[in-house]
């Protein structure tokens, strides 16, 4: 008796197991496109056998657990790679904008304007008292000032834009910290109660990956299933309890700095989109702006010095004054390059001569020769070489970043493929499983039905 009734029981258990497996397959198929989903499988094990005399008889199948296929190590590496790629990718648009702004190849750049100014002095040296030629010099000087002003102002705009990106990245980081913390809280009661929290874990991993794109983090999982997230320098962002938000403080230069618990951690952020924005704003753009300002200052100092050594075409000729000047600083522009202006409006005041004769060209020649001169130049570089160095700095940075981006992207893709290989849903596989479980279900139900008939027979014999 117990044999038949327990067979019924075992038959029923088998049906349940196959049905559960079908459920899991259904879930996998439904989630084929869900980002961060890790495929699941019902793990069937043989039930512990029973002994009848000398015989050991198996007691069917149970589903021990529903396991999700994840490779923790791949996920950690993927997370780190997202940080690195985020850093390089985050800089790409900003560097491209910088390069476009300072592009000399297409014409209209600073080097061209400077060459035109020196050419105009060379031209003036052929006929120094020629008014149209003098006006040409003034025109070229104004053009140079205009180009420098505009580059400086545009650069300032880029820096401001990047500052905005810093602020919005911090906001994004805080949102994600909040979310991870909330998911942590959901997981703990579920898992300590023995319920599998696979779906929530998937969501949490997605949030961790989004966070990694923004900033450099490291994380690990506690025994109770919560995840602790800290910055790469070890400051906790998410622990048990409330998440720690990042704050934004505005410095004296108007730019945002990043703080955690009142400590300035701006210098500690070296990866992710936030790291990219900070690097652009504080290193790349700042250096370019500094060099541009140095150039403006140097142009003013050295050209003015030579100009003052000469005589103009006033009647009688007067000693030359300043050719260039910096207008006073105001709120919108503090940079030398944006304040660089021509100090003369009357072309007769251009000091072309070295003697007080109306048509001496000695000073015009001397000013032209400044173009290649290194005397008194900061760093011993002529104007042209200095500008060339600045141009190369920008071009090399941009090109190197593009190359890095391709490399980082390739690495990321490789890791993503590996993760897919482990955790991704293959529809072919699910289809095959579906058939498998369906057939098993059918077989089990026939068995169940057969045992049922036998039992009924028996009942009719007894009853």
């Amino acid at each position: 008796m117990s044999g038949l009734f327990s067979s019924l029981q075992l038959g029923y258990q088998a049906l349940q197991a196959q049905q559960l497996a079908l459920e899991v397959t259904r879930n996998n198929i439904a989630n084929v496109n869900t980002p961060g989903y890790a495929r699941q499988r019902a793990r069937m094990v043989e039930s512990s056998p029973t002994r009848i005399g000398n015989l050991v008889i198996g007691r069917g199948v149970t589903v021990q657990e529903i396991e999700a296929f994840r490779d923790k190590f791949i996920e950690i590496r993927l997370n780190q790679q997202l940080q690195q790629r985020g850093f390089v990718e985050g800089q790409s648009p900003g560097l491209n904008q910088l390069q476009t702004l300072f592009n000399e190849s297409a014409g209209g750049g600073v080097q061209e304007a400077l060459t035109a100014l020196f050419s105009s002095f060379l031209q003036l040296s052929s006929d120094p008292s020629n008014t149209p030629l003098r006006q040409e010099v003034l025109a070229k000087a104004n053009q140079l000032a205009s180009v420098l002003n505009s580059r400086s102002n545009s650069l300032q705009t880029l820096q401001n834009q990047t500052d905005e990106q810093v602020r919005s990245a911090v906001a994004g980081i805080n949102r994600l910290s909040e979310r991870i913390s909330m998911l942590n809280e959901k997981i703990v009661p579920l898992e300590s109660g023995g319920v599998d929290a696979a779906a929530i874990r998937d969501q949490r991993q997605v949030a961790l990956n989004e966070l990694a794109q923004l900033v450099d983090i490291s994380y690990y999982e506690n025994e109770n299933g919560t995840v602790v997230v800290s910055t790469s320098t070890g400051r906790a962002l998410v622990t048990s309890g409330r998440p720690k938000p990042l704050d934004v403080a505005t410095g004296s230069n108007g730019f945002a700095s990043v703080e955690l618990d009142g400590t300035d951690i701006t210098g500690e952020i070296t990866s992710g989109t936030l790291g990219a924005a900070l690097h652009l704003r504080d290193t790349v753009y700042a250096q370019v702006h500094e060099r541009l300002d140095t150039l403006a200052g140097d142009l003013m100092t050295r050209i003015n010095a030579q100009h003052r050594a000469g005589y103009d075409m006033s009647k009688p000729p007067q000693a030359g004054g300043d050719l260039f000047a910096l207008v006073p600083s105001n709120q919108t522009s503090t940079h030398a390059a944006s304040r660089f202006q021509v100090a003369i409006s009357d072309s007769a005041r251009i000091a072309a001569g070295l003697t007080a004769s109306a048509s001496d060209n000695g000073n015009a020649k001397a000013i032209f020769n400044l173009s290649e001169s290194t005397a008194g130049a900061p760093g011993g570089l002529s104007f042209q070489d200095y500008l060339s160095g600045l141009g190369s700095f920008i071009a090399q940075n941009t090109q190197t970043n593009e190359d890095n981006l391709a490399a980082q992207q390739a690495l990321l893709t490789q890791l993503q493929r590996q993760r897919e290989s482990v955790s991704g849903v293959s529809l072919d596989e699910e289809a095959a499983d579906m058939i498998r479980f369906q057939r098993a279900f059918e077989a089990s139900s026939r068995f169940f039905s057969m045992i049922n008939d036998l039992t009924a027979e028996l009942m009719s014999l007894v009853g």
Partner: protein
Amino acid sequence: MRITASATLFSNWQSLQTQRQEQDRLQLQLSSGKRINLDSDDPTAAAEIQELRRKLAYLQQYGKNASYSDGLLKYTDSTMQAASETVLRAIETGVQGASVVVNAAERKTLADQIRSIKSELVSLANTRYQGNYIYGGVQSQSAPFSVDAATGKVSFVGSSVALKVPVAEGLDVQPGLSGSEVFMGRTDLFAALDDLAAAIEAGNNKAVASQVAVVESARMAISEARGALGHQMQIIERVQAQMDQAEVWIQARLSKVEDADMGEVVSRLSLNQTAITASLYAQGQIGRKTLFDFIG
């Protein structure tokens, strides 16, 4: 390694993106004709292009300076030729005045002719070219020779320093001469003419003869000056020839470095388009079917 549906799709999308980026790059080269549109396309080449453009700009400006100097030289030379011929007339008049016995009235006429020639020469010496007094040296904005209304004495009030114009790197030419050198270099031509006129009027034949010799030597100075101008013209000719060559070389080099090789771009674009079409076709065909299409 398991291959899932989304892995395949993502892979396909990525390779298509790469091909599209290449397409974009090639199209830009095609429309601009340049291999380098942004400095970052090739930083080293971009730096060279800037340097070549700069050299070219200065070279072209030197060329303009050379042309202007050449024009000034030729004009100055033509005035010197005229001056030389004018002085010759004075010498002939002077010789006439000494050799033929003439009366006081005729002597006066000859003397007046000499004085009139002197006026012509002063005008010539105060001639202008494109707004500049060519014999004023670096004082080109005011007439270099002034005549005292009372005594008729001609003084040089310009500069004895002549303008030196850069026509090549490290090379200046002097496209003119100061009037003090041309008309007063060996001897004061105008004073000599005055003295000749006076000698003729006075009937002092010995004085006339010696003054004629003085005027002769002044005429020599003009010839020497013309020689100096000729030398400068030769320098300019040589310089212009060299600069033409240099310009050709720079233009060729610029073209080599920055221009896109059209044939190559077109053929690469065509390959790229083929690759994209093939990729799109493959994506359309592959990965459409799963096992689900074949069961049930």
